[in-house]
């Protein structure tokens, strides 16, 4: 990859006016991505951003790469076709919680299950922004919105649990207040062969302001964000005074002083069994308790597009490259003189 030209953020930025609301969390995610791209040593022309519909889905217009702004919910499907056809490309999929977990939920889970080589960034703000403030499939129970004036009575999705349940080979979570952490997660997603799913807690300052503030504001992070690190005991707190243990198949927060360091779960993102990763994802189903971030799961599994390409290569080496004349004569034939 040494022949990739050196670029800067400017090279990855288009001349289009960014049209998110001032103060939107999407700005910081865009900045993180634009600053990261020059470090990934990839060519702009080999990079494609695909999106559906929603605030987040405007993302491709601001990236000076190839970009396809599709229709609501369908970006994982469109990107699946593109990545299958073109294994040489770096395909990013960007969308919100309504786009990818509601109308496009089916495409998302199947892209994850198939392990298509995509970097899927879910901007989760727990609200519908572009349609001006309805509850989303990640909105909490009781949420009062325009479409739930008496409060939502629906159980929300836990995006990480959903992705793990969908057999995803790479699952991570980050948040829009920490550029370094975002970039680390995005870099890991980029380097992962197969479908990489990254949930980004993203603030919608107009329709759901402060949804994640209890977790992500600077003075809360130490005590409220559980930073998962591969090979290390899972612990958090200003003095690492808290930790997580497995207890009857469930993850539970404890004081390290009560149980000792050796009792803590040592995070293994490469564990072929997703049970512990799933248990960790269930530690927090609301935004007012300590919540894990980082890479939950990163396992090697056959990537879909290359598996298909190998079948083509195998078929060609066995049967020879396609010969149309032979194909048209492959069934019983007869001559009329």
């Amino acid at each position, binding site marked *: 990859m040494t022949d990739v030209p050196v670029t800067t953020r400017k090279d990855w930025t288009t001349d289009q006016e960014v049209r998110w609301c001032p103060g939107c969390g999407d700005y910081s995610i865009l900045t993180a991505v634009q600053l990261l791209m020059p470090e990934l040593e990839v060519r702009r022309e080999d990079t494609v951003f695909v999106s559906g519909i929603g605030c987040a889905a405007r993302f491709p217009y601001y990236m000076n790469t190839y970009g396809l702004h599709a229709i609501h919910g369908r970006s994982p499907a469109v990107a699946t076709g593109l990545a299958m056809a073109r294994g040489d490309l770096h395909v990013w999929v960007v969308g919100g919680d309504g786009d990818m977990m509601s109308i496009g939920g089916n495409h998302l889970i199947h892209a994850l299950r198939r392990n298509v080589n995509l970097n899927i960034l879910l901007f989760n703000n727990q609200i519908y922004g572009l349609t001006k403030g309805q509850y989303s499939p990640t909105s909490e129970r009781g949420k009062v919105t325009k479409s739930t004036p008496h409060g939502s009575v629906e159980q929300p999705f836990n995006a990480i649990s959903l992705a793990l349940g969908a057999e995803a080979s790479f699952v991570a979570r980050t948040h829009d207040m920490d550029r370094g952490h975002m970039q680390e997660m995005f870099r890991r997603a980029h380097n992962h062969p197969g479908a990489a799913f990254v949930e980004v807690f993203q603030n919608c300052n107009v329709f759901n302001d402060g949804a994640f503030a209890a977790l992500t504001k600077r003075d809360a992070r130490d005590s409220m964000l559980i930073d998962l690190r591969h090979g290390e005991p899972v612990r958090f707190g200003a003095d690492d005074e808290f930790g997580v243990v497995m207890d009857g198949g469930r993850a539970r927060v404890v004081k390290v002083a009560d149980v000792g360091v050796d009792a803590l779960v040592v995070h293994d993102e490469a564990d072929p069994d997703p049970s512990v990763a799933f248990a960790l994802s269930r530690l927090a189903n609301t935004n007012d308790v300590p919540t894990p971030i980082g890479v939950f799961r990163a396992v090697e599994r056959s990537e879909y597009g290359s598996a298909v390409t190998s079948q083509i290569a195998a078929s060609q080496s066995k049967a020879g490259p396609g010969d149309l004349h032979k*194909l048209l004569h492959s069934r019983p034939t007869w001559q009329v003189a």
Partner: protein
Amino acid sequence: MTETSARTQEVRTTDGIVLRFAGDSGDGMQLTGDRFTSASALFGNDLATLPEFPAEIRAPAGTLAGVSSFQVHISDHDITTPGDAPTVLVAMNPAALQSDLHLLKPGGTVIVNADAFNERNLAKAGYESNPLEDGSLDGYTVVTAPMTDLTKRACQDLGVKPRDAERSKNFFALGLVSWLYSRPVKPTVDWIDGKFAGRDTVIAANKAAFAAGHAFGETAELGASRLMVQPAALEPGTYTNINGNTALSWGLIAASQQAGIPLFLGSYPITPASDVLHELARHKNFGVRTLQAEDEIGAVGAALGAAYGGHIGVTTTSGPGMALKAETVGLAVSLEVPLVVIDIQRGGPSTGLPTKTEAADLLMAMYGRHGEAPLPIVAAQSPSDCFFTAIEAVRLAVEHRTPVILLSDGYLANSSEPWRIPDVEQLDSIAVNFASKPNHVNDEGESVFWPFRRDERLVRPWAIPGTPGLMHRIGGIEKEDGSGNISYEPDNHQAMVRLRAERIALIAHHIPPAEIVGDPDAPVAVVSWGSTWGAITSARRRIESAGRRLAHIHLRHLNPLPANLGDLLRSFERVVVPEMNTGQLCRMLRAEYLVDAKSVTKVSGQPFTAAELVEAIGEAIGATGEQR
């Protein structure tokens, strides 16, 4: 078993036979019909087939709902339909007889498996008395054979369990009709060897049953019923027997070869389109990628993504899937990317008649998207024509950067006919022309790429990811013509709506003009599209041989319509439009050309018969005062 026997009396010849195999879904009638067809094809007959089967995989055995049929028309001359009425009915059980006897020509031949006519089966089929005994088959030539029993006996010494042996009784029936209608034996024997390779007892049982059926014809003194259909004098060439879905699949592969870019199929299983997915999935050595998607929308979405990446993106489905794909097809209209959407039509609305044919999706193809979203539409006219229609659909999509809808139907999909295999060297190439360099100089004097800068045909460049210097963003939001930047400007939207319509209309200059078959000076013209071609052609020949004149215009391109069509239609006193819907093309022609076209329609799930059309067209001719 020999081709000729000393005991065989002289075989009468006839110009054609319409044979209908009918039995229980589990009786293997489709396979039996298919084998008879293949043997006839190799013998050199012209032929046309009509498989009919229930939507249920296995309806309760012996019931009317479970009857599966296969009709084949073999002929010593060029034919275009599977025949109006069978001349021979093979009924493997009472339900098959009950269900299909009314179709048989008066005086026709009924061949039955007598063993199946027991009390229980008769009751299931709704017979109060045994039709083999109560005289209700008087007026037909009846051949009864204890097929089950003779098959079991033939297999007795082969180590096959009686229950398994019974399953070979369809080969007994095939052997019997092969003898009766002088079909060559070898192709079927060879086929059994190949098909069941490795399953020696199955091979032995099927061959024994086939031979027993053949011998039964010889020994039961059925010589008087024996007929021979000589080979047809078809155009010289190499022929193969092909159905519509296979021809369509091969056409897509051919188009990919002619364009020099890979084929990508995104599809979701649906009757009667699934066989295209099955066929294409087999041909990976042509670089074909197939995705059985999570749903119809995923299938078309993936096809669109592949097309954006520079492949020939195709999705195949039937009516219900078309409804689901509509939004993505609209996106392709807005993006102006090549996409081929194939609708193997079936009876609707909703689940409708999954295994029966209809051609009622034309107006959905024309208008079934929100906003003004025009696109080209092509339709196949016969099973083998699906090959060329597929190539044409890909050509229009790729060369004009547009989604194209190809309409086939359940009848074409499953019916087969002999096809003179084209010389692959003679197939037209398809021009892809990926963009490779900037196409515009901006206000700052820099060379830039404008994704919506058009050529004289109003076609935009196809710049695929991976091309340096041409990075651009496109989407379903209205964009400024030229730059492709998002634009909500009122004047721009108006201009873009008109441009999208104009560029599709301009395709009329890139397709062949409409042609008249028959007499251009006839007072009546029949205008048609899709699978009605066969029955109309057959009807026209009958009308002509009765000394009357008729013009026939068959349309492959339904949008845009050929540029000369309006003038042509206005030159006739009467225009008749037969369709397997309630008059969709007729409506389009009346709206487009203000001609007083008359509709002839059929929506029974069955194709038109030539006889029905002779009558309907005859009435129209009569109304003009045209004399015989």
